């Protein structure tokens, strides 16, 4: 197989989605799988992967049953928020006081959001959750909601949890569940959508961004579908409920089929459309494999298999990640890591905990261009080279520099000092690369170190030219200043173009 992108002429459609033959499962392939499916390919992970088949590897990475615990304070807030708002409306007369109390609730929610965001980073950094959480990120980039509009942290958590458990179900079912998530109901204005005054926002995005893609439905389909999706409400600020008398129960004609459809029926009808077989696969390829267009014939072939398996996401995941197309050399080492991938992967590669300072971590994400749960618009983030500009690159470099800079505890403000204490209690205090750690490799030959660094931190295409450069940076690793040179070499490598790719 060559490095030129495959076409049906050079690489048969029949073979594209077959599992990689056993003989091809080597260190390179294991690294490719781990870096794309998760956030990093550490030596331990590669060794473990090679003891298994690709199939077992993928299966284990997505093994069902995972729940990211809901932060306690968030549960508490969710279970009381309705009552607390009601009290404000019912008991407080003074409008000034009313506003003040509402503000306090919002502020509380804001603090909970930051806590949740940090909890997510801790959770996703744990290698056994990484593949699934990355897939959750993928789904979040399909079912986009913006925190700026939704605001309620518990709704954001609940939507994410639905996506997380949905990974093992089938996609139409997940679409139905998402349509009933308060975060989505709020974000795409389903809550405004009533028989008397239909709002088409959700219906449009359901077709355009979740299932079919542009050009595969008519404006009339949207109008009619919106009527079917009426009556979706939120109860007690937290739960979905269906309000019969707001629902339009007359006949609707969508995709040429007429009936008294409800919201779920619309989703079933949508998945009878040919475009529904390929839409998500195209998104999957963009997120995991390449920014370049992949020949439609491949996508259609997988789409057909997927539809035959009832649009099962597990089937799609298992087929995709062990397929010959996925492992094609043309798709290796040329994919820009997203900021979240970069950040979590960096911590995993360096065996570090996530720094316990929410303002630093979350701000770094802002600067690198991927604010947690807050994409720029309903289209979600644009991947690939769109991540890269002078600001975001400086942001990535700063993140690396920070991990190699000793912490000046005196400079921390009160909150940060508390966070640091908590992290140490939770045994999450190891978040910087210390000189002591670097000293452990002093004396290892520069050639061996360069070999190790290039093997585990970057991908094959960049290795030959980087190896020599690294060796000369490392110099004599038994001579004075070796620790410093090792540190410099690592920083340089982690800031280099090659490390930003996978």
């Amino acid at each position, binding site marked *: 197989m060559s490095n030129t992108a495959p076409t049906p002429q050079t690489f048969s459609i029949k073979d594209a989605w077959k599992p990689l033959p056993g003989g091809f499962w080597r260190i390179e392939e294991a690294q490719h799988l781990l870096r794309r499916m998760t956030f990093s390919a550490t030596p331990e992970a590669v060794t473990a992967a090679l003891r298994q088949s690709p199939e077992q590897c993928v299966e284990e990475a997505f093994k069902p049953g995972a729940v990211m615990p809901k932060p306690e304070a968030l549960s508490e807030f969710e279970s009381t928020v309705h009552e607390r708002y009601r009290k404000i409306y019912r008991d407080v007369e003074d409008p000034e006081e009313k506003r003040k109390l509402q503000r306090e609730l919002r502020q509380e929610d804001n603090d909970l959001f930051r806590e949740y965001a940090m909890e997510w980073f801790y959770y996703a950094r744990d290698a056994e959750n990484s593949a699934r959480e990355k897939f959750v990120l993928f789904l979040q980039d399909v079912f986009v909601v913006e*925190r700026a509009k939704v605001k309620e942290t518990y709704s954001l958590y609940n939507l994410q949890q639905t996506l997380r458990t949905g990974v093992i179900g089938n996609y139409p079912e997940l679409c139905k569940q998402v349509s009933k998530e308060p975060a989505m109901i709020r974000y795409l204005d389903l809550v405004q959508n009533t028989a008397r005054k239909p709002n088409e926002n959700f219906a449009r995005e359901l077709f355009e961004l979740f299932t079919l893609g542009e050009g595969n439905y008519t404006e009339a389909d949207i109008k009619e579908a919106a009527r079917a999706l009426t009556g979706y409400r939120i109860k007690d600020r937290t739960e979905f409920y269906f309000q019969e008398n707001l629902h339009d129960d007359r006949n609707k004609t969508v995709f040429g089929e007429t009936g008294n459809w409800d919201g779920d029926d619309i989703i079933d009808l949508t998945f009878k459309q040919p475009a529904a077989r390929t839409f998500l696969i195209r998104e999957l390829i963009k997120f995991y494999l390449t920014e370049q267009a992949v020949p439609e014939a491949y996508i259609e072939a997988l789409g057909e298999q997927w539809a035959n398996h009832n649009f099962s996401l597990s089937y799609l995941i298992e087929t995709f990640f062990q397929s010959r197309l996925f492992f094609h050399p043309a798709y290796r080492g040329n994919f*820009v890591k997203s900021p979240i991938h970069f950040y979590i992967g960096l911590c995993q590669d360096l065996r570090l905990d996530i720094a316990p300072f929410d303002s630093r971590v979350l701000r770094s994400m802002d*600067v690198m261009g991927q604010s947690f749960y807050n994409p720029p618009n309903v289209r979600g983030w644009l991947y690939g080279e769109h991540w890269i500009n002078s600001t975001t*690159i400086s942001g990535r470099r700063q993140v690396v520099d920070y991990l190699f800079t000793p912490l000046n505890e005196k400079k921390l*403000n009160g909150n940060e000092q508390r966070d640091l204490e908590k992290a140490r209690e939770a045994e999450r205090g190891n978040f910087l690369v210390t000189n002591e750690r670097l000293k452990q490799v002093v004396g290892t030959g520069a050639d061996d170190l360069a070999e190790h660094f290039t093997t585990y931190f970057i991908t094959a295409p*960049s290795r030959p*030219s*980087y190896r020599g450069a690294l060796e000369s940076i490392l110099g004599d690793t038994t001579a004075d200043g070796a620790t410093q040179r090792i540190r*410099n070499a690592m920083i340089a490598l982690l800031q280099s173009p090659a490390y930003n790719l996978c």
Partner: protein
Amino acid sequence: MQNLPLTRREFIRGAGGLGFLAFSGVAPAFLARSALAQTPAPERDRSIFVIIQLAGGNDGLNTVIPYSNDQYYKLRPNLGLSNGLLNLNDDLALHPACSELHQLFQDGKLSIVQNVGYPNPNRSHFRSTEIWETASDSETFAREGWIGRYFDNTCAGAPDGSVDHDPCGIHVGDMIPQSYLSEKSHSLFGMKHRGRFDRGQDPADLAYEKLLQADHIEGNASYLQHTMMNTLVTERRVEQIIAKYKAEANYPGTKLAQSLKRVAALIHADMETRVYFVSQGGYDTHANQLTNHQRLLTELSAGMNAFQQDLNAHKKDDQVLTMTFSEFGRRPAENGSAGTDHGTAAPLFVMGSKVNGGLLGQAPELVTDVKKDLEYSTDFRGIYSSVLDKWLDVDSAKILGEKFEHVPFV
């Protein structure tokens, strides 16, 4: 320093491994642009804005002290200052550590805007800083900073950090300030506050450059390489300017003063950059405030003064306006650990040869209730709108979303 490349062209010529670029798809455009790149003509009348962040929440009541008000001393039996005060008028005085700022005030080169804040103040460091930096109200969550939106309105986007132009904004420190975050992509540059250049370069940077000059394959790898090189070229230029700079004032060795010295060097070199951001930390004085705050204000006063004197001596003072801000002031009443907790409004300084000088805005009202916070009297966005309309010459409503009442410091 030996012959470090200063343009992308030199970079490519000097770098052994880059000859191959001539054959890759991106090379021609990249080379052509480098060939066209010239040092921009210095624009000597460009107005420049320097922001000094006092991170942690500066105690306003011990910065501009209402010494004629008994209430102040009642609220602060241990922290209330009465000796060595630098009078501004019959009621207010500057902290004794601010002698240089006091002199600037008397010379009419320092405006003090009193009691600045915003409605429904937030007392979280992070959130309140975000509110100040995004110029949003306390209910709105914005990502873009107010300076970033100014860049969006005035600077052409430069997605690859093109060195055909200097950065729109430069900051000192390890994090891009949220004030600079924008919708479009602009060239921004961050520098360290110290580090000697005469010894040659930081070996960590040299290591990075070495890897950058290694062969990179076409596509994203070479796109990344180019973006990074462009940023490096700016870095080189900045380093040379700083290394060669002869300051005409005695800058103290503090981080703040050294940061400002670097800013002065870049201004002197007629960089196209319009906005600089530096930060001084440590204002979160929950305990033992007296000595800490004394030290912080000494650094601030001496640093700002050296900067202003330096600009004067280089005849750049007409071009530069410097403003301080802090996420919040502190509680009027002291706490039990000889410190103060997070509060609300506080005064800020605006310095420059072109400022109108004097005390502006209403002084805060002090009340007996020890739990009470100060009620702001000047909205910080009024200050921003004056800076935008009157100094940076851009319609403030476009940046801030609405018009705010100007504060007449310029």
